[in-house]
């Protein structure tokens, strides 16, 4: 069984078209929007700020709290019941783990940095889009970071290794599909998110990780541009 050409005509190592913008939610301390294909994520950062209840506080450093949520109308099928699900809880958790390594919260004992990710529209790759948006929003909020974080999904459909699977590829009827979301710190190429479901051989996985890292470097350029553009918007 072969997957000769991608359904939307992209190259095997090409991501869907990406749009990124920083500073889109004025009430937040930092915010960003990241759109990849038809998957669209907003992230807002509030913090460092007061943390209640007290038992959650860490006297040595601030804590990071992430919440990933899909808006009820964001799925291509039926309405998504608000209030989160086990899936969204898990995604919130791995998102936090993907972002924490770049943050230095030593200067904010007993406080919290809250990251809220909301998706008005999803079509595969939503947790990666959320992480890309969140990383820009954290930088926008002026927090101390070692690096940004870029995320993309890689995977296998039939016999082809691909970057940025869309919905039709994730649910390819053949059955031999592997979906692997990863997150990368672009300046050190270290990996902060790695999940997989499907079937894949180790050599294929290692090749996919290389492809994913490369795609993330392109995403990094887009994130940098979006951050710098926010401050050039003023027309004098």
């Amino acid at each position: 069984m072969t997957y000769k050409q991608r359904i939307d005509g992209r190259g095997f190592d090409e991501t869907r078209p990406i749009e990124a913008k920083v500073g889109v939610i004025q009430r937040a301390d930092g915010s960003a929007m990241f759109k990849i294909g038809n998957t669209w994520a907003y992230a807002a950062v509030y913090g460092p700020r007061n943390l209640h209840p007290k038992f959650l506080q860490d006297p040595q450093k601030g804590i990071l709290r992430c919440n990933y949520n899909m808006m009820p109308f964001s799925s291509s099928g039926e309405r998504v019941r608000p209030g989160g699900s086990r899936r969204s809880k898990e995604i919130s958790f791995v998102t936090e783990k993907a972002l924490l390594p770049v943050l230095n919260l030593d200067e904010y004992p007993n406080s919290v940095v809250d990251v809220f990710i909301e998706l008005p529209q999803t079509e595969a790759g939503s947790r990666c889009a959320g992480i890309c948006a969140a990383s820009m929003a954290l930088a926008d909020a002026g927090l101390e970071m070692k690096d940004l974080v870029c995320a993309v999904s890689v995977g296998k459909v039939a016999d082809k290794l691909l970057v940025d699977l869309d919905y039709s590829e994730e649910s390819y009827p053949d059955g031999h599909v592997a979906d692997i979301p990863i997150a990368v710190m672009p300046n050190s190429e270290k990996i902060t998110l790695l999940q997989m479901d499907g079937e894949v051989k180790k050599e294929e996985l290692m090749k996919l990780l290389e492809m994913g890292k490369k795609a993330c470097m392109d995403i990094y350029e887009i994130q940098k541009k979006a951050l710098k553009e926010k401050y050039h918007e003023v027309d004098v």
Partner: protein
Amino acid sequence: MSNIMVKDKEISVPGETLAVGMDVLPGIGAYREGEKIIAKRLGLASIEGRTIKLIPLSGRYTPKTYDTIICKVIDVGFNGWRLDTNSAYSAMMSMKDATSEFIARGANLTQYYDLGDHIVCKIVNVTSQKLIDVTMKGPGLRKLKGGRIIEVDPNKVPRIIGKQGSMVTMIKDAAKCNIVVGQNGLIWIEGEPLNELLAIQSIRKIEKESHLSGLTEKIKEYLEKNGKAKE
């Protein structure tokens, strides 16, 4: 020989390499890792001699000793007040630091400063756990009555104040308002309604254009143009 990778006044993102080489020094907002000088946060690269620092463009206020800030009273206790400093941490002000008047023990402290009051105070101490002590004993430190309070990005405060207060003085004179600028991003303005608006709009303009050059001239022009319109 060192290689500086960014231009002066270029916006840098966290993790970006600002310079490579051993004879460049990292200033505030940057750090050295091996041969490289790296940005710690989002900021404006500023090259001064052999030092590269990053001027922060965003971020909430971090309380510092000796800062003069505007706080809001959020709790009144037996011996003092708890204050909102517009940061992640609240401040405590004890009776003895509140005023040069004598306050008897057991007095009702709300007579002096009540819930919701805004005061100008000075930070005397910040511990490693970010416990903050403030005092109101000092010139210019007082309760603010009347007028209105706006919130600006605390990173823009230096620009709003200007060199030796030149910018804020220019606004005070042109808009005929009393203005107190807190290092924590809260600003108090008092004057005739339309004049207050002029002062606020000028401050908002400085906030938006703080990283561009020629700002003083632009604000001067803005004040002249809009000041006339209101007469």
